[in-house]
């Protein structure tokens, strides 16, 4: 027959680090746990905080996805939903809250004010024009204020982002 004894692999082969399979599986487990247990910090500055409270309530009920436990202290929180305008005086406080959270930590910028200053972009002397000047943001939710569905959508998007994270692989790569 015309079949060669040994076919050459058509692509390139990169060598995986030690225990590549094990690490990937562990990553899958950890990402599953992390994405399904995102505890937000009880933090709201203005109008968007009310819509955040609506997301907690029975009609939208974010506890279904594992966001249930709202912690008042940043040490136990995984996610900070910046709901509302951040002004110059609040900016160091927000940075400090973010620093106080243990890794891994995520940020959702909720509402127009946190994205760019929103309605408070022009002629204002005290508003920070977008919180990404202060802390890194994972998901932006536009709206003034965004609907609870939008917030839920953003949190599910965050879950997807976490699921694609590679905690252990990164650790191995570092070595």
């Amino acid at each position, binding site marked *: 027959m015309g079949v060669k004894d040994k076919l050459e692999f058509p692509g390139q082969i990169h060598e995986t680090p030690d225990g590549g399979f094990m690490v990937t599986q562990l990553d899958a487990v950890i990402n599953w746990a992390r994405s399904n247990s995102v505890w937000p910090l009880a933090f709201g500055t203005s109008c968007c905080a009310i819509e955040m409270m609506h997301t907690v309530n029975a009609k939208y009920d974010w506890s279904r996805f594992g966001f249930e436990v709202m912690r008042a202290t940043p040490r136990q929180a995984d996610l900070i939903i910046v709901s509302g305008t951040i002004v*110059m*005086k609040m900016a160091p406080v927000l940075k400090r809250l973010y620093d106080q959270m243990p890794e891994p930590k995520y940020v959702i910028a909720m509402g127009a004010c946190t994205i760019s200053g929103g309605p408070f*972009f*022009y*002629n*204002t*002397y*005290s508003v920070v*024009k977008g919180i990404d000047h202060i802390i890194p943001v994972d998901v932006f939710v536009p709206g003034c204020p965004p609907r609870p569905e939008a917030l839920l959508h953003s949190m599910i998007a965050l879950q997807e982002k976490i699921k694609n994270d590679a905690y252990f692989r990164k650790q191995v790569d570092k070595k």
Partner: protein
Amino acid sequence: MTNEELKNNITQVFSAVTFDETGEFLNVIIPSEELLPFMKVLRSTKEFNFDYLFCLTCVDWKDHLMMVYFLNSKTHNHTIVVKAKITDTINPQIESVYDIWKTAELNEDEVFDLFGVKFLNHPNLRRIFLEEDWVGYPLRKNYVDEHMIEL
């Protein structure tokens, strides 16, 4: 008391005042030095009895600052607006009315913060909204901020 009666009674007590009746309320304009004695009279005299200071603010007219006090009497239910003119815009000063109306404390803090008017005998004068090291007084018309984006 109606505005007319108020006007008459005030002129009897205090002569160095001018009146302005164009708006909804009776406006009384007095020099800033005489504010405190005038306010004390308004508060303590029985027929005035202005016990309710419901709005305290300041207006920057570029050449002078105008303190505005909205007073109401809960017993007689009449309203008056007292305006005190501060001519010194570089280092504006005026007596605090905290001793008369306790609500003035935070309101005067606010005016100090945003207009830079210093209140004498104020119990705790501080920048209430902005950081301690903020330069300038934002609601003054000559305030410049290079970070501010004009529409």
